[in-house]
């Protein structure tokens, strides 16, 4: 286990439903490795990516991963995320590609001055398309789950992207049994979601059962935060301009999802271990995406972003 991981519950026999989800994800990954020329795994450093990476190691054991990892770095991720990313790649000896949209950097795009929508569009969506095109990847794994959001609930495990990586929700291929149609023509590419059928709870239970290291930001600790539109924003470095009257205060908070720090709200929590997170999940009355400032803009926000090529 990595020194960075928080203590987790002692190993216990994995429940049958986790074993089934695990087998399904492994089957999906092997199918991609067998049928695509040049696949890649999107690695966002979050818990879902950690689980996906762990599953990939299982899928190809004793072999190495037959694809690299790709991280789209917006330059606004939490510092602990970047440290965790580099430590993970080194610990596992995995090829990691880090891509940043340099044009975006030159244009001075950032989440504070440009707003969340433009920042996401340029530094995430555009950056991802650039990286996929530049390396000629024909399939990319993503850690998205159907329980996260309504338009995701309708997305296929193998999600075809047309020209310019666009998703057309109305012309999705029917997906029956475990028979995935992996054929591409012309400039089409595939996004593949091995965790489609997992819930947030399944992910945490699996992290616990498999003792998978995750970024410590998921666990409650005293962190310097300011309150903005009802969310706790962590002051991760000195780039976050404080508004008049705002002073960072130390609060015991944790994150349910991780992204760009100025756009990711923390929740007040005392859950300092995976077991405590699971207990907290049992009682929570709020969904996982509540902390993401980018979705709240409008109810169909996610679908629009996906149509444009977002993951």
């Amino acid at each position, binding site marked *: 286990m990595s020194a960075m991981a928080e203590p987790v519950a002692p190993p216990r026999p994995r429940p049958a439903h986790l074993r089934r989800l695990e087998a399904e994800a492994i089957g999906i990954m092997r199918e991609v490795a067998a049928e695509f020329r040049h696949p890649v795994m999107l690695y966002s450093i979050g818990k879902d990516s950690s689980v996906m990476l762990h599953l990939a190691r299982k899928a190809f054991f004793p072999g190495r991963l037959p694809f690299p990892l790709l991280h789209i770095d917006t330059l606004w991720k939490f510092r602990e995320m970047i440290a965790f990313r580099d430590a993970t790649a080194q610990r596992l000896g995995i090829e990691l590609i880090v891509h940043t949209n340099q044009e975006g950097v030159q244009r001075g795009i950032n989440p504070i001055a440009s707003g969340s929508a433009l920042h996401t569009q340029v530094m995430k969506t555009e950056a991802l398309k650039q990286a996929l095109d530049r390396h000629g990847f024909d399939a990319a794994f993503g850690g998205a789950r159907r329980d996260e959001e309504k338009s*995701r609930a309708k997305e296929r495990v193998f999600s075809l992207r047309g020209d310019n990586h666009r998703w057309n929700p109305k012309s999705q291929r*029917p997906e029956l049994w475990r028979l995935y149609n992996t054929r591409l023509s012309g400039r089409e590419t595939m996004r593949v979601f091995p965790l489609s059928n997992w819930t947030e709870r399944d992910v945490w239970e699996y992290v616990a059962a498999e003792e998978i290291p995750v970024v410590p930001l998921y666990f409650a600790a005293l962190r310097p935060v300011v309150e903005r539109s009802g969310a706790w924003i962590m002051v991760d470095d000195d780039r976050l301009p404080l508004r008049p009257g705002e002073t960072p205060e130390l609060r015991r908070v944790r994150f349910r999802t991780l992204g760009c720090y100025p756009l990711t709200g923390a929740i007040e929590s005392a859950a300092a271990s995976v077991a405590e997170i699971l207990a907290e999940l049992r009682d929570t009355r709020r969904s996982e995406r509540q902390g993401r400032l980018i979705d709240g803009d409008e109810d169909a926000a996610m679908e629009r972003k996906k149509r444009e090529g977002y993951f």
Partner: protein
Amino acid sequence: MAAPCAATGKKRDRDLLRFLTCGSVDDGKSTLIGRLLHDCALILDDQLAALERESRRFGTTGDAIDFSLLLDGLEDERQQRITIDVAYRFFATPARAFVVADTPGHEQYTRNMATGASTCDLALILVDARNGVLAQTKRHAVICSLLGIRHLVLAVNKMDLVGFDEHRFDEIVSGFSSFAAGLGDAALHAIPLSALSGDNVTLRSARTPWYRGPTLIEHLETVEPAPIDGERPFRFPVQWVNRPNPGFRGFSGTVAAGSIAPGDPVLVAGSGRATRVKEIVTFDGPLARAGEGDAVTLTLADEIDIARGDLLADPRDPPECVDQFAAQVIWMSEQPLVPGRSYLLKIGARTVPATITALKHRIDIETMAHLADKSLGANEIGFCNLSTAAPIAFDPYQANRDTGAFILIDRFTNETAGAGMIAFGLRRASNIHWQALTIGRVERAALKEQVPAVLWLTGLSGAGKSTIADLVERKLLARGHHTMLLDGDNVRHGLNRDLGFTDADRVENIRRVGEVAKLMAEAGLIVICSFISPFRAERDMVRELAAPTPFFEIFVDAPLDECIRRDPKGLYAKAKAGRIEHFTGLDSPYEAPEAPELHLTTLAAAPEDSAEAIIATLRQRRII
């Protein structure tokens, strides 16, 4: 479904049930699912807040929350108040985890229902107590039974609107039971409900004292998914050959049926090669046994040739291996299924070219009647004979969903055009042996001192194909080559006199000609074929048939206006007068070649020049 965890020997501590919901529009499907999630306390505060916002904007329930908005995830769906696609929901009670496939009741219901049903153990069929069982309800039941669902729940909803009347409930249930009895051995359970007020959903209703069965959630929590009729024979489709270094060669896949332990004998289905399992390798250490649903890597005692797509099986009970079989096919593409056309068939980890050789009948899903038909349209179901380019190993779908199901992929659009369930093999591939012949294509051609080839001229009627073909043959003959010319009109007087001009007949026309061209090329001839051959799929089929004989697709291209003006046989005039139907270019499409070996535009060039261009190409490619 999976046996108790064979690998760990532990019983499952929390189970999973996959079910789908079906019903006609407005039967209350969305309300019921929303109610289930709500009563199981699974709708979270921020989701409820968003739902309230949207209910005010798009909802149809006045001030009450419109639960259907919880499920309709796409923007178009919410604005137009329709459900377009299957949505998957996840919820869990202390007793069990559930995956719900919510399938739309209208638009393309067959395709979406089949998609949802393909992975489900149980179907929840809703009816409105006022309307009772409708034609639609029966269709849903039929599709579920075709897809192999063994548990049906008839949810008689809106009981509040019929005064919770026991007789009404009994009447609906007995009507449906007698229909469902004809569908095979699915277990049926009926529950009187009100989704709106929650009666018998998660709480037993005081208003139905006459109903003594479980609530809906109780039933879902306790129903035993597909019964395991003893242990099934071992099946393991090889998905990935794991060769990290020369010292390790493993075969990765998911156990589709039965179980396996080190030392057990296995057979590569179809090949007869046999060996034993050496080790079951996993990241978590070697296993003593792997069971259904386990994703593992097997190493074998002997070095035998095994590739992705092979099926490892129990040698005492091996699967059938055939290249012709009968199957139920659900058609999903807007392009109709055409017998004779080549598709890609994917079964397990194997993909092979396949054609539907005969559409035995179409199934009327309301009456289950068998109707004669020439093709299948989108959302239609038929019983077909199929033929694959290479033998495939399978089990009947009824015995094993994983090794008995396939999809058909359109070779041009790459869309998933159809889904099928194998009923039975038509003949063992091994019964019709290829007679091993001593003299082959090469020897026959050598005697003629030439390289055989197929020249395929395609284009509109009147484009100049026959004239050019005739010139080319004369030129070849003059150079001492042995040739044969197959011409569309001439073939239709003999070999293909039984065929007309529907899409299906055109496909069969070209298939036969392709086979004949292939035989002639094997006889060592240069075969010149002059056929409109309007569909890309068939031209490519002939190319594949002919391989390894060199194949030249020659597009004889003239604008439609020019062909109509030339009209050498007076056919365009007749067609325009309505005396010929399905005339290519007019009321039947022509799909121009995308990458022909040669593209001749005959508007500018004389036939003589075009013929010379063909000869030049043959010389350049060293055929002559």
